[in-house]
């Protein structure tokens, strides 16, 4: 029997696989394909202080082995999410991670505080790395001092464990990770999308209405692996790894790099059953490479 369980701050996971924020809505659509109880946890779509309508379309474009998106944090606002979305996911008795976004320190604190009163939310993912909104978000994710400040403020305001979601769009990912660890982060979540652009040959203009978007999918997996591998050597808090995962082999690669659990994003779009299929295949893949449990494999890519 292969043991898939992982214990992280606030999260007792029966398996290490969860859908990534923004790629799974609030679970309703995928609950029509399979029982969400199967998942290790659910990371909800980002919540902001008030309703946000997002960017103009086109919001997505396919790229070689990946895709660009610039949704722009469309969501009904934190209070509505607590009222109407969380009870739906909670009915599946699966751990819930709420993704917290904002444009200012005050908004981050407001959203994080709101989840204090939300039963069923087990942890926060602090989204300081959305590349697709004009103001806010990303500057907190690219400056270590600002990242530390927002982490500290949210930690003070929240009674939940906080996983800070790091942007890969920085020169020194380790500096970011160390800064938020020092500021009190309980864990890291990495990586968010890589900023990119596609230009349409017919119109001779950027294809996305937002011009730039976040690159995700298999194309960014080596970037994620490298960053997790580096960060693992410098921090002592757990890492939820993500970036191009589409198979159980990919999950093992992330575990070896140092991730304690993983999130699956873009793969859900291609295959709505991506998460449950990966969970089903993971035991055999772990065994094939000589591991009896997920815990055994974590960080084993770093030598002895």
């Amino acid at each position, binding site marked *: 029997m292969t043991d898939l369980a992982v214990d992280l701050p606030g999260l007792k996971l029966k398996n290490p696989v969860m859908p990534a924020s923004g*790629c799974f*809505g609030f679970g309703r*659509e995928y609950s*029509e394909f399979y029982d969400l109880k199967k998942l290790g946890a659910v990371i909800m779509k980002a919540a902001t202080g008030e309703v946000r309508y997002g960017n103009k379309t086109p919001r*997505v*474009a396919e790229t070689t082995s990946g*895709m660009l998106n610039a949704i722009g944090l*469309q969501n009904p606002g934190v209070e509505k999410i607590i009222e109407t979305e969380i009870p739906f996911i909670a009915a599946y008795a699966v751990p819930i991670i709420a993704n917290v976004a904002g444009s200012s320190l005050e908004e981050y604190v407001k959203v994080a505080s709101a989840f204090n009163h939300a039963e069923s939310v087990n942890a926060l993912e602090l989204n300081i790395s959305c590349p697709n909104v004009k103001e806010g978000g990303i500057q907190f994710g690219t400056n270590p001092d600002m990242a530390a400040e927002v982490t500290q403020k949210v930690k003070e305001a929240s009674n939940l464990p906080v996983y800070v979601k790091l942007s890969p769009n920085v020169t020194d990912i380790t500096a970011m990770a160390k800064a938020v660890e020092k500021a009190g982060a309980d864990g890291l979540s990495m990586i968010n999308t890589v900023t990119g652009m596609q230009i349409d040959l017919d119109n001779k203009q950027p294809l996305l209405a937002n011009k730039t978007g976040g690159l995700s*999918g298999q194309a960014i997996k080596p970037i994620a692996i490298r960053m997790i591998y580096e960060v693992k050597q410098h921090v002592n808090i757990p890492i939820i790894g993500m970036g191009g995962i589409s198979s159980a082999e990919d999950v093992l690669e992330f575990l070896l790099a140092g991730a304690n659990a993983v999130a699956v994003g873009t793969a859900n779009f291609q295959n*709505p059953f991506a998460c449950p299929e990966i969970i089903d295949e993971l035991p055999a893949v772990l065994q094939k490479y000589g591991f009896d449990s997920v815990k055994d494999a974590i960080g084993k890519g770093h030598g002895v």
Partner: protein
Amino acid sequence: MKRKVELVVKSVDVIALDTFEMTLVNEYVAKTAIPGQFLHLLVDGHTLRRPISIANVDRNNNEITILFKIVGDGTKQLAAYKPGMSIDALGPSGNGFSYEGKLNSVLLVGGGIGIPPLYNLGKTLKKKGIKVTAVLGFQSKEHVFYEANLRELGKTYVVTNDGTYGYRGFVTSVMDQIEDFDTYYSCGPIPMLKAVTKQLQDHSGYISLEERMGCGVGACFACVIPTDSHGGYKKICKDGPVFAADEVVL
């Protein structure tokens, strides 16, 4: 529970410039699809699926027909599929056309690759004894397809932008020749839909929208359309692709 389906390619034919007709076999889709719905097709090696409207359903033989135009790598690859190969799809997806209530006559207004779902609808309505009139718009003569199919359903006007076939101009150019009708249904490029909904604003109507999609099931918020001036959005893949003409802002 929703499912993924495997459709087997029966035939692929060129029917106009860069335009293909593909017949697929799958019992579940053939038995359940309604006019206006689409298939979200996975073309091997591509990250995102392609949403393609259903153009015809043969329930007796479990066959579904789709039409598509080559606009990029995905559709180019799809056109090269051979009979016997199978295609992974989500669907039938989305909400179809609404035709409840008392209808005696309808107008179909299609532009280019927006015509296929209207053909499927027109066939269904004609069977119910409803009078069908169609206006088909194309760029030029070599793009024209399904004219004969639509003529079997009722009086059909063909318009080309450059006048190389049928009437010259846009679909809106022939509207003054059309006898009155109860409801219209339209699908095509956004500028055409804007012109059509404006010209026919005194009629009730439904439009079907196309947009680049991510998940195709309503989870990713990629394919949205504004519903009013206050910033509300509907999801094209899940709330549509068919909307009442006054429900969305083009």
